């Protein structure tokens, strides 16, 4: 039987991305029709439905094999500028899941605030950009989609206009982001200078014969890596991350640290695997996998060490997010010409999916705590479990999963990642990762300890239960748990998608 989606016109392959963009426009339209009334339910509903529809379509495509090796390989649009394959669909699924949870949770978070429609449409526009990042087949689309994801994010971080923290976070995010995008653009221009093309496939075939321009290509590649490091919050472009995640509204922190990071990795995976094949560039002296290995080690060490001494839970999570970027970087670092590259990268993709659930859940729990106005430090969390046991149980799941303890999704994904790194011969990366994981258990368990073991320092006045936030946190918790049994198919899909890149 011919699968249905093969009978559709090829442009429909980008339907998930289009759906995200359309939802954003619909939200703007709804707000334009009657800008003076707020309908939090309707707006949150549209955003959630739109992202769920995206998730459904992307998931269907992914399961049906659209653009994957089984059914004719990647679908190219606009002369290869857009590519739809397993990798892009996989990351669209990640982004759409996160957006759905964030939209659901924002219903309560935004209840008494203005500019709700703008909030949701900015989120969805950013999500469109992130989804597009995974499909970018040309450095031009890479840049445009990256900016499409970044610009709304800057505005979203500074969304709380009267909150100095939010504004400061937005400013820092924006300024570092502006510098980083300039660096990325300059890097792209240098690669173009060396190869004469922006299409990844053409770049790949031309970069090997750059001749005298090897230096230009090398500088360009390192600068492009820098641009992606910004998006993934990796050293040395991570400086915005702790502040942005701490100052931003918590749902936005969830969105940025999960979806935006995943999208950054999506584009990095594709650009480096397709555009700068190791076989061609390493003999020239451009060993980008070594570059990422250094970044991975530094990033995970810095993130975890800095997280260990934080007092503010949200900031701790922010640093832990930097640490997780380091783990995911292994997917770009533990590569070698002819090695089991697809498996490593696939494990990293699977980790990012699991991370999307557990980290979003953790930040949404913070959003709930902010909603309750409990406080921000570990001490403020003391004894919270006596008042909100279900939510605290979910948070415990997230913490232990982030730390990589069995029996949660984070355990298997981290295990798979380290295992594949060892299989690829990069045992030292896995060792550094394992040491850092052990350290991370320290600060994650501090949260659990505060919630369950410590006595409350004061009375909690939690007020009414925020339904949307609660539901989103529970969805994330269930997702984190379900990804343990479902991890097998997930990692297989990811690995076959990644292997297709190296083919």
């Amino acid at each position: 039987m011919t699968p249905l989606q093969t009978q559709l016109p090829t442009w429909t392959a980008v339907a998930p991305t289009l759906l995200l963009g359309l939802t954003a426009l619909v939200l703007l339209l709804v707000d334009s029709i009657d800008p003076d009334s707020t309908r939090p339910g309707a707006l949150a509903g549209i955003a959630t439905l739109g992202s769920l529809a995206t998730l459904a379509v992307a998931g269907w495509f992914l399961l049906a094999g659209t653009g994957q090796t089984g059914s004719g390989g990647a679908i190219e649009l606009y002369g290869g500028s857009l590519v739809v394959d397993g990798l892009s669909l996989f990351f669209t699924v990640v982004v759409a899941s996160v957006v759905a949870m964030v939209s659901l949770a924002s219903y309560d978070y935004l209840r008494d605030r203005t500019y709700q429609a703008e909030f949701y449409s900015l989120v969805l526009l950013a999500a469109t950009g992130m989804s597009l990042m995974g499909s970018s087949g040309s450095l031009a689309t890479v840049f445009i989609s990256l900016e499409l994801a970044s610009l709304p994010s800057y505005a979203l971080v500074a969304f709380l206009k009267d909150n100095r923290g939010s504004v400061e976070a937005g400013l820092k995010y924006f300024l570092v982001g502006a510098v980083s995008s300039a660096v990325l653009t300059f890097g792209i221009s240098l690669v173009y200078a060396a190869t004469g093309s922006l299409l990844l496939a053409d770049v790949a075939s031309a970069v090997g014969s750059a001749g005298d321009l090897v230096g230009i290509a090398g500088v360009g590649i390192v600068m492009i890596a820098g641009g992606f490091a910004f998006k993934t919050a990796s050293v040395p472009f991570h400086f915005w991350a702790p502040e942005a995640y701490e100052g931003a509204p918590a749902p936005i922190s969830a969105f940025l640290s999960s979806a935006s990071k995943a999208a950054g990795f999506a584009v990095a995976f594709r650009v480096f695997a397709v555009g700068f094949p190791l076989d061609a560039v390493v003999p020239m002296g451009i060993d980008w996998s070594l570059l990422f290995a250094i970044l991975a080690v530094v990033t995970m060490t810095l993130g975890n060490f800095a997280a260990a001494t934080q007092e503010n839970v949200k900031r701790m999570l922010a640093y832990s997010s930097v640490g997780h970027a380091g783990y995911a970087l292994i997917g770009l670092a533990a590569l070698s010409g002819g090695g089991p590259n697809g498996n490593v990268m696939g494990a990293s993709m699977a980790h990012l999916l699991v991370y999307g659930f557990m980290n979003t859940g953790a930040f949404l729990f913070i959003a709930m705590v902010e909603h309750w106005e409990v406080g921000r430090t570990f001490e403020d969390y003391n004894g919270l479990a006596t008042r909100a046991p279900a939510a605290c149980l979910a948070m415990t799941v997230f913490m232990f999963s982030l730390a990589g303890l069995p029996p949660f999704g984070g355990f298997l994904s981290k295990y798979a990642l380290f295992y594949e790194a060892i299989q690829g011969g990069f045992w030292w990366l896995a060792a550094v990762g394992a040491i850092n994981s052990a350290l991370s258990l320290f600060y994650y368990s501090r949260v659990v300890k505060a919630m369950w073991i410590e006595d409350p320092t004061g009375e909690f006045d939690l007020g009414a239960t925020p339904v949307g936030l609660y539901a989103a946190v529970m969805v994330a918790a269930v997702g984190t748990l379900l990804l343990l049994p479902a991890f097998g198919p997930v990692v297989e899909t990811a690995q076959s998608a990644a292997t297709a890149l190296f083919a």
Partner: protein
Amino acid sequence: MVGAFDYAPAIVLLPFLSFLVALAGGKYLPKGGAFGGIAATAGSLVLSAWVFLTVSAGNAYNETLYTWVAGAGEETTRLTFGLLLDPLAAMMLLIVSLVALLVHVFSLGYMNDEGETGLPRYYAGLGLFTASMLGFVVADNLLMAFMFFELVGLCSYLLIGFWFRDSGPPSAAKKAFLVTRFGDYFFLVGVVAVFATFGTAKFAGEGAFPVIAEEALAGSAAEVTTFGFAPETWFTILGLLILGGVIGKSAQFPLHTWLPDAMEGPTPVSALIHAATMVAAGVYLVARMYGFYALSPTALGIIALVGGFTALFAATMGVVKREIKQVLAYSTISQYGYMMLGLGAGGYVAASFHLLTHAFFKALLFLGAGAVIIAMHHDEDMWNMGGLKERMPVTYYTFLSGSLALAGIVPFAGFWSKDEVLYEALVHGLGGSPLLLAGYAMGLVAVFFTGFYTFRMVFLTFHGEPRTEVARDPHGVRWNVKGPLVVLGILAATIGFVNMVPVQDLTGIHLEFLHDWLAHGELSALTAEHYGELLHDYAHYTSADVASYVAGAVSLALALAGAGLAHVLYNVPEPTEHTAKLGAVKDLWYNNYYQDEYQIWIATSVVLPLSRLADKFDQGVVDGVVNGVSSVSLFAGSRIRRIQTGVVSNYAALLTLGLTALLVVFGVLGGWFV
């Protein structure tokens, strides 16, 4: 056809089931769940007997039942559970399940009839203890053995500390746990090292680690990782690491200090610990992997010396003790010293034999002591007893049987086995291993002391005039105490007949059944025959020609001398303490050579200052590493986060610096601008 081996897992599972039953429903069951335990151990005993018969028909079983960690690929290490049933294991199964059964029955009298509380906890502990030991016995690889070894340790902790509301038992339990755990650290390192070296930890079969080790020494192409050592050296190191666990568990010098304290536990538990489970585990482990130890003469020598020394050392301390159970405790240490001596001296069969006989007579002695303690209303001081012979004849005669066996008086069980251990040490010692002669000498002297303290105990307890009111009118004991005593009394008297080497030598009648039993088998790498070859080829043990009955006569004479001395001194109506005549030695012995004191002294005077010294650099010796790492991490973290100054211009600067550094490093490395 379904044979005994298919039911073998049930041997372990039945007591475990009784543990679960007692734990879950003990409160609602009559006798606190005792009958469940009795039924389960009886079932295990029946199955063990069946396995025993099947094994004696020349079969063996060595199967992996469950793989719980399997690395991908063909050549990776697998962590498995499996069963290994060979003659040694079958024999041990029989011992353990029989003793456990009798202990359960005895507990009815010792615990239930005395109205103890917390019985479900007690029977649950016994069930788990039995199950762990049985699991340890049938383990087919070192890791599984280690896990059950630890479980055994845990159960002993729970049971020794059964009366946790008193002050003594919990601290004794803690001491037992910590001291054995100290040894187990070495064991654990050894297990990991074995995995790292051989990639497997199986005891027997194709690709078992003793086999690989043998091949490696023989120079055939077996792949082992020896971390830069010569294979001989490395195998010795491995053996000694594992020996660390053995010394802790089998209470050998210098880790024996926990065992006398463990007397704080209920007496049936002491019987179980000393006769069949915990302490036996150590010796059994050495016997189990004897094919590995036989490759290393150094390890064997150390085992023999430690064993001989412990035998003598503990026997001397037993001479002055006042409490009946203390005497027995030191006798246990001493007797396990003999077993180690036997193993070290190349007497695999002799040591196994002694393990067998000791299990029965020591269980007997403990249960007998338990009966006495019931009678004396839980007074354990022998100086408060006396004259119990007339008032509790069953206990007396069975106890006497056990004592004769312990002292090594012909023809009781202990004579045959102890004699054979000493004989092996003598012949191999004379055959060119002078180290073993030292062991032999110590063992021989210990025989004298053994005879003395055993009969001192017997005379003080049962003979003479009652010295207290309680001893004049002791509490009666019921069938559930007498039954096990009788069974064990008969066994203690007769079990030695399975292996009467001196008699065989004298008369020429074939009487060494245990030799035959252990010498052959389907798993040829696990037989005494094969061990003999290994000892000869690798440890270079040769036997001198000494008639076994001569050696036997010497040790018998010494034992009789000891017993006679005890008779002269203590078998009088009103015995007095002669220990004062020993002078300073008495204090020395009474205080166990100041073992605890010197270990505490070491802890306080040597380790503590050292720790304090180390503390200046770090936080302590063991914990300090952990704390140190974490505080260094936290310190590093508090420094690292200072990079995040909060000023965005600094971020831009650092970002630029980072990028520039990367560009420069990779530009230079890659030679981009050359």
